[in-house]
């Protein structure tokens, strides 16, 4: 990973994205790209948990939503629902992140005792319970949700500003997640993924490492959630219900769940498909309009899972490295997948 071509590529991509607002329409920058980046940051936290910890989490979107609801409750004033604390936006950010960390710690501590497919099911349960929680607890939100939330003045005004915030955060998250792999914690975490028994007998606290990984991923998902409510201006429980929760996993799967680049790639494919599918010629004739978007996405995921569980990045990797070499390296999905 420390090969310089990949660093050059990263700098080039970052520079291209930074220059993007100059050459594209405002819709592309402030709607399409910002949405892609926000979802990608959240999806990257799924990749982080899977790649280093071998955990497939469906709880990330819940924490994403918790951050949004907490910001909404903290900064909302008389016009909106929720607690209407009316705090300074920056205090709201700190408040939301602290709550996210606490929630991630509790949920992670409970889930860290399970692994594999059990972890997936338990985190899915978290997600659905979270949806009902925010729906039913009207002091915090209720099904109507919280509206009228504005970002701090620094990020408000020009639509480019939030885009650059999302781009900056994307870079930090991407580089940070890659850097964690070389820290002692990251190495131990990957050890618990590959052989938890050996790690336990070497004296590592396996559940603690898993919990901490979940907290880190929760922090990142929370940051994305804060950006999301600034960008969206509102949040309601339906936006964190089971459908969007699964969509986030689908984004990670489309891109390639063990590649960090895959999170951004998957988000780009998902969001662009959502918006531009109707423009594809002949699509109307075969009855697939944007109303049947989920069928298209489902078929895409099905195709990817049948052909290459490693997603688009996996396919690209295989093409680039040639068939022989790719076969030699065992894909992570097969490693975790075989019970």
């Amino acid at each position, binding site marked *: 990973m420390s090969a310089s071509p990949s660093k050059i590529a990263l700098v080039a991509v970052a520079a291209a994205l930074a220059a993007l607002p100059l050459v594209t329409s405002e819709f592309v920058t402030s709607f399409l790209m910002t949405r892609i980046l926000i979802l990608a940051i959240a999806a990257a936290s799924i990749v982080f948990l899977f790649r280093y910890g071998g955990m497939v989490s469906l709880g990330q979107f819940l924490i994403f939503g918790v951050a949004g609801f907490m910001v909404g409750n903290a900064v909302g004033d008389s016009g909106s629902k929720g607690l209407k604390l009316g705090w300074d936006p920056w205090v709201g950010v700190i408040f939301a992140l602290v709550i996210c960390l606490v929630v991630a710690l509790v949920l992670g501590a409970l889930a860290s005792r*399970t*692994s594999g497919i*059990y972890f997936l*099911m338990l985190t899915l349960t978290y997600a659905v319970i979270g949806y009902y929680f925010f729906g039913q607890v009207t002091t915090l939100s209720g099904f109507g949700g919280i509206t009228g939330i504005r970002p701090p003045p620094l990020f408000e005004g020009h639509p480019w500003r939030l885009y650059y915030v999302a781009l900056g955060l994307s870079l930090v998250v991407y580089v940070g997640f890659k850097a964690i792999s070389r820290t002692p914690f990251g190495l131990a975490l990957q050890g618990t993924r590959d052989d938890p028994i050996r790690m336990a007998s070497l004296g590592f606290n396996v559940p603690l490492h898993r919990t901490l990984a979940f907290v880190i991923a929760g922090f990142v998902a929370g940051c994305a959630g804060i950006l999301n409510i600034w960008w969206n201006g509102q949040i309601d429980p339906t936006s964190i219900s089971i459908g969007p929760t699964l969509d986030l996993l*689908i984004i990670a799967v489309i891109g390639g769940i063990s590649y960090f680049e895959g999170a951004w790639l998957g988000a780009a494919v998902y969001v662009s498909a959502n918006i531009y599918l109707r423009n594809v010629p002949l699509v109307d004739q075969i009855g697939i309009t944007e109303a049947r978007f989920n*069928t298209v996405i*489902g078929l895409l995921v099905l195709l990817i*899972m049948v052909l290459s569980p490693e997603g688009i990045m996996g396919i690209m990797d295989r093409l680039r490295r040639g068939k022989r070499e790719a076969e030699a390296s065992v894909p992570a999905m097969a490693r*975790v997948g075989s*019970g």
Partner: protein
Amino acid sequence: MSLARAAGSEAVGGARRRPELRRRILIAVAAVPLLFLLAWVLFFARGTSAGPAIAEPGEFLVTLLDAITVAGLFFVVASGFTLIFGLMRTVNMAHGSLFLVAGYLGITVQQTMVGKTRNIEPADVSMAAWFVPLLVGAMVAAVIGIIVQQVLLRWNEGQELRQALITLAVAVILADQMLAWFGGLATRMIWPGAVTHFFEIAGQRYATSRLFMLGVALVVGVSLWLWLGRTRMGMIIRAGVDDRDMVRALGINIVAVFAITFFVGAFLAGVGGVMGASFAGVAPGADGQWLLNSLVVVIVGGLGSLKGAVAGSLLFGLVVSFSPAYLPAAFTFYSIILTFVLLAVVLAVRPYGLFGRPA
């Protein structure tokens, strides 16, 4: 591979086998909140919608009946889920979709049989006009299930995550197609007229249809138990749950057994779907909700265990029925949290559920 090891490590981690004394202390600690809950329900539950049980025995009885009848429905749906997982280690994320398909089809068939599409009175519905839709819905769910299994899951057996994501994609497609075919409005099935009346119990009126539902669930449960416990096929399935490779090595065609198990599991989802459509109605989103219900039941009870499904359904049914009735009126919104508390308590003591074992 690493999954098996990961699971194994839990066994090692937990294998600082707690001494008997510590275990007893743990049980005692767990018993305190339970006793508190019992005392609350019996004596102190003033200001709740039900009132203390000694003052309002009728309310208590009705809540208990609610809990048991809804647990019957939970069991029917979750037993199919746990059966498939127990034998094949496949987490069928499309289980809720099969539930919903059967529910919608049951409603359609019933409307055709009765001859009206709206305002169906229970008196119009004969026993046949309920059981035929039940069978049709469940059969279609079972056929969809077996197609999914044969086409998409047969060749990647053992790759749990890949299978879970494949069934997830199937669930997304089915949900979208059902929205296209059946629309977005909530609809419901009608119970047969013969069971749609009320009877008096401890001064409270209670719907016979709920007892009918419990009866159907009991029939399903007992047949399942007899099938698994008393027939050759059931014996093979139970052996397969314990050691698939050994069953295969003995010359048994486990591929056929897998197919039959998936068929039965999907059939049970379908039976549950028609019951659920009569009990609470169906609408887009019910698939996710019933997948959640099945997940809670099997996470609490333990995946792959029929006993676990019974225990999980009962506990979940108790929580679902008692929390809105016995939480103080101002806090009934929080009843969903008690579901989470149930999960947390069970998982903290037994990470793989009450009757579950590491994979």
